[in-house]
């Protein structure tokens, strides 16, 4: 299993979280917050990340140059670890699953037929082997299944854990994996 360097991880955490403060960026890959703060200041100096404020929240987000830098780092890492074929294959398996997932999230939000918890449990089951194949080659891919299953368990008490934006909900976890695959392969949605 290939470990990723911390500068790659801090930039990639910003990509995956979209918009996050230093603490949340560090927490994404269990990095040291002080060191992550330094990495982000360096990245800011290079024009890769920018700090902005929205609706009373402030956080980091990638610039267009930062996105390109992020994708170049991931691509290089993929080849160095010999993991490209695996990631391509997992992405191919993910695409049809993603249609089921977004359909299930939409049905859940709209309250239409088919929004049964069983569909989310089935998605969690399908996610597990995909993650195992990825994480066997690149450790940074680990954790999605655990987070998804945890959110699903929480949803029994609070339905916001299915599609909510303020918690690490099933939809947010799912979407983060989608973004991770897209970024790693340098493709667009």
């Amino acid at each position: 299993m290939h470990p990723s360097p911390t500068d790659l991880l801090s930039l990639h955490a910003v990509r995956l979280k979209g918009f996050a403060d230093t603490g949340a960026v560090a927490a994404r890959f269990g990095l040291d917050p002080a060191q992550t703060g330094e990495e982000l200041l360096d990245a800011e100096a290079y024009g890769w990340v920018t700090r902005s404020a929205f609706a009373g929240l402030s956080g980091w987000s990638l610039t267009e140059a930062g996105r390109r830098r992020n994708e170049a780092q991931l691509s290089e890492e993929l080849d160095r670890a010999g993991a490209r074929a695996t990631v391509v294959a997992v992405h191919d398996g993910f695409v049809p699953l993603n249609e089921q997932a977004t359909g299930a999230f939409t049905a859940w939000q709209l309250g239409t037929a088919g929004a049964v918890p069983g569909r989310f449990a089935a998605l969690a089951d399908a996610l597990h082997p995909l993650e195992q194949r990825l994480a066997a080659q690149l450790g940074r891919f680990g954790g999605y299944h655990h987070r998804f299953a945890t959110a699903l368990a929480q949803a029994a008490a609070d339905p916001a854990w299915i599609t909510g934006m303020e918690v690490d909900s099933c939809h947010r976890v799912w979407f983060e994996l989608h973004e991770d695959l897209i970024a790693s392969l340098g493709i667009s949605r």
Partner: protein
Amino acid sequence: MTTAGRVVPLAQAGPDCGGKAAALAVLLRAGLPVPDGFVVTDPSTDEAAVRAALARLRPGPYAIRSSGLGEDGAAASFAGQLETVLGVRDPDEVLAAIRRCAASGDAPRARAYRERLGLGDRTAVPVLVQELVAADRAGVLFTRDPRDGGDRIVINAAWGLGESVVSGAVVPDEITVWREGGARVAFGDKRTRLDPGPDGPIRSDVPEPARFHVCLGPEEILPLAALGWRCEELFGRPQDVEWAVCDGRFWLLQSRPITTPLAPAPGSAPDAVRPSAPERPDPESLLVVGVASSPGQARGPVRLVRSVDEFSRVRPGDVLVCRTTDPAWTPLFRVAAAVVTETGGLLSHAAIVAREYRIPAVVGATGALSRLIDGAYVVVDGALGTVTLTRSPS
């Protein structure tokens, strides 16, 4: 049969050619776009004459439809009661289709319909042969609102041949156009489409986002409505029109008087059961249509955002307009009044996140970044899938 049938060029068709053909001839002579064709007045018509008339049209496919004498009159429409054969290419098959359509007046369902309406007993039916329009989009148009008889055009539209709308195979888009200006669009669920194939029409699934995407562009709505008004003017009464678009060109396939009673007498039905006509969106005008993805209506200034580098331009209450969204864009949903994206469907990231934040969203709005002007005030209707211009910020 004592008199031999004749082959009549469509432009010269008169009342003896049946209601459908006679009405199309009126449109054709007025210079309106009607596919070329001819009428076979009786099944006894000489085969050689039919083959010769066919040779003067463009190569198939053709549409062969009955043009009944009682049909399409002012009192009753035989909608679906008489035979239609679409997509035939070979002359022998055309002749067979003509015989089938001519005999369709004998079909029990058509006979029963005639008897119920007291329309006499003539059974041989003139048959109309036309070049088939390989429609990208097609449907029907009423020059009066069927909901209340109001003076506004109501268009039903779907992908492919108009058969999908006429037969009720799909839930069509519904576009209401006011004579005074303004339009309203309600998107349908166009699950399938019918297209001409080598051996007759083929029905196929419509994938997302087209399935929920309004199939007429804003620039097409007024020209189509204008064709409807022209039909009403020519016949001097409200019309029910079948239309199609092929390669950007509109065609009229049928025009007949509206046969259902309009404008129910006051008090004849409780308001609760009578579908109500929509309110005219004046003084707003329709700029963009897309997939209605998160319900609600919001008004605000357009903020065109092309990349993350432009995020700082977004202010609370703006209407966010962009190509697509990903996790980096999520915080903008917290401050935006509404979201419009050029790509995506009901299941896209923007749609799901907008529903979470309870703000209106229109996605798959093709051309939004070029049609909408930064800073202009618009109304986004996330239930109808429309973005309309409004003059005042309040």
